[in-house]
């Protein structure tokens, strides 16, 4: 199987390419107009519809979205982990100047783990249950770096210490089922860092963990990012988690980035009605006895590529203009972009959640 299976064809009726986000100087990763379509005999799903973003070196980008928003598919395309025979991809994913979508499968295998690696939601299924954790880490190091098993073992021990696993020496010989959930997730981070990647992709790595363990793993990732100068893309559905780890936020809805900007700008004053709705419907603090500002309706069906704003059917601010074609990403000041024709109105609304707070408690 070669790259030929990935058809680099632009959709015929695609809207004009979105403007490039403010170019970071020498970004480690630069995604431009990425489209991902899953084609089966029965139906086609337009999972990602024109995603563009840059990731600066040493930056943590949080991709926030609900199920079906295309956040995980975007992440997986960066390592080309999607099933090749059923996936149609177009656009470009430039990783340190090389387009991942144009690479041969051999080349892709070469970058997986060494340049870019990934941690997953369920560490229990990411590890092979019949080998010890140490064996799996050594195997990766030997494969990529061609050093002896003994040297690899020494490095595996260093890695387990790096992710703060207590009594690392014994844990090297532990099987995945002998570890607790939090410990397994730490071991998976060690495995992902085994070949000193520059880019770490995290796909909801803390969603399956308990709150007291989740915060430990989040803080560990933040420390590692600083110590090793990693660039991280962190995909999550949880606003709180995204706030905890990221420096910049990209909010996805219906396979598109609907808003992106610095965390400090987006959270207090969202510029897209979906971001606002998501923040307002996230329960936090003392809101007892109030009514939540829920977003009515359900997420879009992605059988057809979007021809208008995908959020329009659920949007409280919808006007005729919203249905006249897909809105472009517009600048909202600074490095912020929002895919909405009414961003000025949205930014001027009171902060999300405040309307509910001001309502008189029962």
């Amino acid at each position, binding site marked *: 199987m070669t790259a030929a299976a990935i058809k680099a064809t632009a959709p015929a009726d695609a809207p004009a390419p979105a403007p490039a986000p403010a170019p970071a100087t020498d970004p480690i990763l630069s995604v431009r107009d990425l489209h991902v379509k899953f084609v089966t005999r029965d139906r086609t799903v337009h999972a990602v519809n024109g995603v563009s973003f840059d990731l600066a070196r040493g930056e943590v980008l949080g991709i926030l979205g609900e199920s079906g928003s295309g956040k995980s598919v975007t992440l997986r395309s960066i390592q080309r982990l999607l099933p090749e025979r059923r996936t149609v991809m177009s656009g470009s994913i430039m990783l340190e100047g090389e387009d991942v979508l144009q690479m041969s499968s051999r080349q892709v295998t070469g970058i997986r783990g060494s340049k870019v690696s990934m941690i997953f939601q369920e560490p229990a299924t990411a590890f092979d249950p019949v080998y010890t954790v140490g064996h799996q880490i050594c195997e990766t190091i030997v494969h990529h770096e061609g050093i002896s098993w003994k040297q690899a073992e020494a490095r595996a021990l260093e890695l387990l210490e790096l992710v703060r696993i207590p009594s690392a020496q014994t844990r090297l010989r532990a099987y995945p089922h002998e570890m607790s*959930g939090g410990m397994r997730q730490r071991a998976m981070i060690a495995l992902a860092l085994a070949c000193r990647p520059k880019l770490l992709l995290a796909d909801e790595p803390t969603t399956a963990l*308990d*709150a007291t363990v989740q915060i430990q793993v*989040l803080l560990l990732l933040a420390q590692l990012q600083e110590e090793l100068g990693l660039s991280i893309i962190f995909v999550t559905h949880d606003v*709180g988690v995204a*706030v905890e780890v990221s420096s910049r936020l990209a909010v996805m809805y219906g396979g598109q980035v609907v808003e992106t900007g610095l965390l400090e700008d987006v959270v207090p004053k969202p510029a897209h009605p979906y971001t606002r*709705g998501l923040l307002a419907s996230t329960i936090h603090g003392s809101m007892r006895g109030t*009514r*939540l500002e829920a977003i009515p309706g*359900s997420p879009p069906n992605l059988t057809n590529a979007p021809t208008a704003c995908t959020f329009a059917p659920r949007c409280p601010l919808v006007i005729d203009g919203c249905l006249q074609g897909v809105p472009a990403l517009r600048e909202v000041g600074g490095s912020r972009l929002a895919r909405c024709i009414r961003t000025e109105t949205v930014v001027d609304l009171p902060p999300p959640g405040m309307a509910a707070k001001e309502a008189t408690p029962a």
Partner: protein
Amino acid sequence: MTRTRELDLVDETRPDVGGPKQPLLLVQDLRKYFVVKGRNAGFKKSPPVRAVDGISFSVAKGETLGVVGESGCGKSTMARLLIRLIEPDEGDVIIDGQKVASEDGISVREMRSQVQMVFQDSYASLNPRLPIEESVAFGAISDGVPRKEAMARAISLLDKVGLDPRLFVHRYPHELSGGQRQRVNIARALALQPRLLILDEAVSALDKSVEAQVMNLLSDLKSQFDLTYVFISHDLNVVRFISDKVMVMYLGEIVEIGEADEVYENPKHPYTQALLLAQPAMDPAERRKKAPLTGDPPNPIAPPPGCRFHTRCVFAEGVCSQVVPKLTTTGGPGFHEAACHMVIPGSGHSQAAAAAA
């Protein structure tokens, strides 16, 4: 049974047996140990998992009790014990003054017409081969309600949970989204006109925007049908939003229980404090710098002696590993109890007050 068979679902048929002061749900010293199959390395029989280890609490009529705790703390086992999906080893469940499964009380079947449950996995809880109206009507039919009436009741309930009957009644579970399926499960739970609804992580699998819709729906239904909720979740924010009273569990025991605002504003047990501190901040300026606890919760097969939390507690002293702390009032305004030697006067902990004279 003297149940009126009317479509009007406001329930006058469930007599308020004990009067308004009698708690709707009273749980006394409930205990469930699970026997672990197989033997451990020493070829001895493994000790049992102490899933729920002697818990007692009450829920007043019209009240919402929130239950929080991490995985393995026994909150779901407790829910299943309340509705007798599993048999307790010891302890009593008393619904409105009537002991469940007892000679002088009510049968399990009678209890289940008053207590219903909504589960986390909305898809696994519905029969994939039944249209949703049949699923909703099924319980009522098997309880003796004529089919025609049960179906009419199902349609009216689907309307009440926000699913337009004209569009939805003939659909199958796989044709619905997660949020819609959970609405069906709520409608089904209400079909028997229960007084108590147990919601076990009922909104945990939903996206945030949908979760907010379902939370609003639960608030509406509660006032409309005079319901009492036991709301179980690992999400402290959601529990605070809906609960009047909150109960915090750790390794099968209650460590703190009290009025919701008291517990959240003024947590007394170090575990509750840690849980609250472990919540991600919603404000970029208030990011967490330090994890409140290290390590994972210990194994409930061999819980630590004394206070079960002492192995992870920063305030632990000698007394904590020797004496089991009892739930004791914290002395704050309103109902608030914690099982910690620091709040028990004269417990021997250096931070505890002196024993009352």
